């Protein structure tokens, strides 16, 4: 973990990650690629996912002895933000989630292939919408598997008397249904059946892996809203109406200021949660509260910013051909993944300690 890195080393690692992200999927540049992949199975480019694996990103969080980069959440959040800004449709965060589960179950072989980009294994853990619980009900349909059409196999947690087991079910022959998503990808519903037992896995390991995926999703949303805002500011500066740039109208300026504050709050909240997770010494409750706060903020802010981005673009914002619409669609897909804002507010209320409060009040 990043505890091994000092601040300067971490900052350098983050800078390098952002640079390589820009090489593979630049913030501003590849919306043509995104459009070309939309609604065409599997909804992403396997070659790009393989290139991401080559960069070491699927193994980013894994320790070096497992073939990983040994980096932490601060690094992952930077990477996720860049890929969010670039609207990269490749399922990197789901692949990393699988990596964490495989590592926890000690399943070295599939892990090696996943990390190397040779096989896309996707976790089929979810049995209800907007949840962070993986009950592992035998036979229950597994829902909302992102970009499921591109998987070579699925990881299915199954509850047995003695605890959770992790099963590997090949995609070939699986009862899998795909549904198109707003951003051009595909959610899969899997009816789990057969496959091979990989090993048992602890509840805490599953919870931690989902915690990491949640925060990485918040960071992805940060990239989405940030880049949508950049495009919107460009539009406000250049689009003329009533004889002047619309960005000179005070009501729109004030709205832009409010959006900027929401983006800044999201960024600060995500960075603080990442630092907390990387610290390792904090309690599980504190980590859960921080992650929930970051995800709730990012989900609400991303929908607000992308919605307002459409509004500020006026008529053109409501066309499918305007790139700004791609950001709204991505935000719609990610906002409730790994828990809606409402779920995370409830979790925060249950977990957070009143650290700012109380001591000074009579």
């Amino acid at each position: 973990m990043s505890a091994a890195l000092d601040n300067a080393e971490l900052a350098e690692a983050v800078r390098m990650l952002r640079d390589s992200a820009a090489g593979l999927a630049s913030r501003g540049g590849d919306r043509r690629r995104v459009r070309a992949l939309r609604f065409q199975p599997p909804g992403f480019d396997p070659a790009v996912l393989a290139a991401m694996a080559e960069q070491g990103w699927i193994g980013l969080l894994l320790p070096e002895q497992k073939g990983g980069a040994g980096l932490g959440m601060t690094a992952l959040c930077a990477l996720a933000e860049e890929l969010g800004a670039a609207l990269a449709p490749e399922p990197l965060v789901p692949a990393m989630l699988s990596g964490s589960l495989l590592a926890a179950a000690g399943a070295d072989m599939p892990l090696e292939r996943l990390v190397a980009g040779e096989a896309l294994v996707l976790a089929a853990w979810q049995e209800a919408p907007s949840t962070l619980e993986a009950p592992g009900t035998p036979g229950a349909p597994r829902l909302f598997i992102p970009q499921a059409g591109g998987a070579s196999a699925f990881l299915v947690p199954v509850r047995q008397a003695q605890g959770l087991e992790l099963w590997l079910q090949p995609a070939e022959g699986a009862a899998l249904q795909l549904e198109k998503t707003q951003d051009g990808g595909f959610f899969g519903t899997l009816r789990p059946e057969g496959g091979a037992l990989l090993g048992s896995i602890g509840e805490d390991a599953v919870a931690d892996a989902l915690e990491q995926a949640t925060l990485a999703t918040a960071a992805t949303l940060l990239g989405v809203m940030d880049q949508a805002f950049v495009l919107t500011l460009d539009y406000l500066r250049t689009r003329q109406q009533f004889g002047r740039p619309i960005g000179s109208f005070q009501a729109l300026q004030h709205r832009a200021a409010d959006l900027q504050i929401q983006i800044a709050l999201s960024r600060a909240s995500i960075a603080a949660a990442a630092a907390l997770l990387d610290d390792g010494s904090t309690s599980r409750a504190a980590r859960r509260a921080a992650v929930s706060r970051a995800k709730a903020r990012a989900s609400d802010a991303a929908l607000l910013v992308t919605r307002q981005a459409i509004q500020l673009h006026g008529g053109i914002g409501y066309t499918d051909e305007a790139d700004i619409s791609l950001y709204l669609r991505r935000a719609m897909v990610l906002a409730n993944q790994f828990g809606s804002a409402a779920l995370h507010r409830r979790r925060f209320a249950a977990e957070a300690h009143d650290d700012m409060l109380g001591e000074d009040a009579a």
Partner: protein
Amino acid sequence: MTDLNALSDEAFRAEVRRFVEAEYPPELRHPPHRLHWEQGRPWFDKLQARGWVAPGWPREHGGLGLDAGKQIILIEEYERHGVARLPDHGVIMLGPLLIRFGTQEQQERFLPRILAGEDIWCQGYSEPGAGSDLASLRTEAVPGTDQEGDHYVVNGQKIWTTLATDANWIFCLVRTDKGGKKQEGISFLLIDMRSPGVTVRPIINLARHDEFCEVFFDNVRVPRENLVGEPNKGWSMAKALLGFERIFLGSPRQSGYALARLKLLAERMGVFDEPDFQDRYTRLRMDLDDHKDLYETFVAVLRRGDTLGPDVSMLKLHQAELFQRITELMLEIAGENAGLLEPMGGNRDLHPAGQFIEARPTTIYGGSSEVQRGILAKNVLGLPG
């Protein structure tokens, strides 16, 4: 034909309700998008058979000659039943304008063909450079004369033209004089879309529907007799045309229907009884009921035979934002379904993403919320420039 105006409001409402329940094609109720002409044709035929194509036109022009109160009832019943709007710019916009400003020749030439469904009209006002700022439009009509007579040559582009692909005629605001104030020098021109030089390109919108179009004019020849009213007076004519239909942009029906779908979704997601949800749902219900009361005060103005003032902007603003807030709550409670392209399990009433997207343009089109707030501030509250 019975004089519908002679019926009591209750009797008329019952009459309309009987008609739509008996005759309106059930598969067309509450369509998620504007219908194309061919899709709505069966309903048009029913209207035509009954002589109900143009409720607001005077009877001498083939309309029903309904007063404002009856027209409101008619539209309320249509909304209640989920009757689709047909491509109706000829009936709603052009007809009244020709009846008020057109020559007898223009009336005789165009009105019967609208009633017969032979001419389908679309409206060419907005331009790429002039969205909310309509007065700055640049599509240009230059007068000329050739062996076939006086005419205009039109060059330029219109955008957000609703269902232009279905239309064979377009009525346009075009610039005929570049001097003076921006609002002046604009004329009202009727253009046959089959003329050489007219090109239509559909625009796919966020709902992935092709309801809007761009229309391009490249040296299009338009006969002089297709000018309505005086040259350079088109802007004031178009504004005078803003009739009581503006009230329907503020109708509570759209939000009421969305709220019913929100409830359905909340039940499906198992959150309907959760206190968080109940609190927000109750606020939305109260907003809707208050909106309905406000709407009725404007309807009362019309029933009294008075005309609407600029304060009707309030209705449109509040309805649009209420509709949006309802669909935003849908998105929040829908879990991952918020990201689906198609309705949940194929049920059109369970499509939070679609309804959320459907609500987006309500604050943009028909006078954006920013423009409406400016109207309220300046023309109603008397705030300075």
